């Protein structure tokens, strides 16, 4: 992510210095996940920075920041739930494709697959997640994660390939 520069950077630094710790604690308690909390805090700060011209008139930045942070955190919880469901769907389809004689041990296989997804290199894991859970096209994935469309496509491809291989040959 490119740094905000000059005045923008100063404003964000000020907000982070004053409210960062309490907001991070609040967000972390909602999400119970430090990586996700990091994203939410950064989103909150960027949104605050964009809103600053209007926020200037507000007496209470703190209340505003809390409200925004809570909303973004709750959205993250919801999309995490969705993402989990979609990945499980994906996994199920996947297993059917590679293992036509699916037996009754769905749950155990699902857990294995989950562990494998978690072990994917970050770029691949994120690209796969955006593709499957958010159903984004490659252009949008490239925009969100940075990098080229071709790289986004390659990451999704590699992730899928790796999962298939590991499902076949754990």
């Amino acid at each position: 992510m490119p740094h905000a520069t000059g005045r923008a950077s100063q404003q964000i630094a000020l907000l982070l210095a004053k409210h960062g710790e309490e907001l991070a604690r609040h967000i972390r308690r909602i999400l119970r996940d430090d990586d996700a909390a990091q994203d939410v805090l950064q989103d909150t700060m960027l949104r605050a920075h964009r809103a600053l011209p209007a926020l200037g008139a507000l007496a209470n930045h703190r209340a505003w920041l809390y409200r925004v942070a809570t909303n973004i955190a709750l959205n993250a919880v919801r999309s995490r739930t969705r993402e989990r469901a979609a990945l499980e769907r994906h996994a199920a389809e996947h297993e059917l494709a590679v293992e036509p004689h699916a037996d009754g041990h769905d749950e155990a296989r699902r857990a294995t697959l989950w562990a494998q997804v978690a072990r994917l290199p970050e770029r691949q894991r994120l690209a796969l997640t955006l593709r499957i859970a958010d159903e984004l096209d490659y252009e949008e994935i490239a925009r969100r994660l940075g990098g080229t469309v071709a790289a986004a496509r390659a990451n999704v491809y590699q992730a899928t390939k790796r999962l298939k291989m590991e499902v076949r040959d754990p």
Partner: protein
Amino acid sequence: MTETAVRERQAVERIVLEAFGALTGRRGEPLRYAMMDDTPVGVLGLAAGERGLRHLSFVRDEDDFLGRLLAEHGDVPVLRSAALDPVRRALDAYFAARRFDFGVAVDLSGVPPFHRRVLNATARIPAGRVATYTQIAVRAGSPRASRAAGNALHNNPVAIIVPCHRVLRTDGSLGGYGGGLPVKEWLLEHEGARPRTL
């Protein structure tokens, strides 16, 4: 503090520091700060790095202090933190006249060498006693530099704990003070040292 609370604070701080790096480019050892809003000498801002207290300043309010910190420390993250609670408690005890020694580590590494010598000499004046600018210049190893010593004291980044208020003019008059002369007078009376003509 419980272990869980410590772990939570570390995790929370990592999240904030990561955001500082990503959004503002500020990285490295953070400066932690805290405010004391109603002391007998007004609003105080405190800031510390890993090696000790680097600022104790008389300020208008939090935004004033924070603006100065961010300007003076342009590359590092700055964050409000409960890590300074022990320093605040030591200052509370001082203002309640329960104890005049702070037991707080002070980090003067950001101060030029002569100024540091002056401040170190000043730190050795006990509560209830005073010294003159000239005496401090002598103790800092530059007997003729009393004006420069005054300058160093005027720029003391850690007021009260490095007790520059205990340094007076040779004629016993107060000289100057960053927090204002009434504050200097209050501190000296509080410690039982009355400015008098030598």
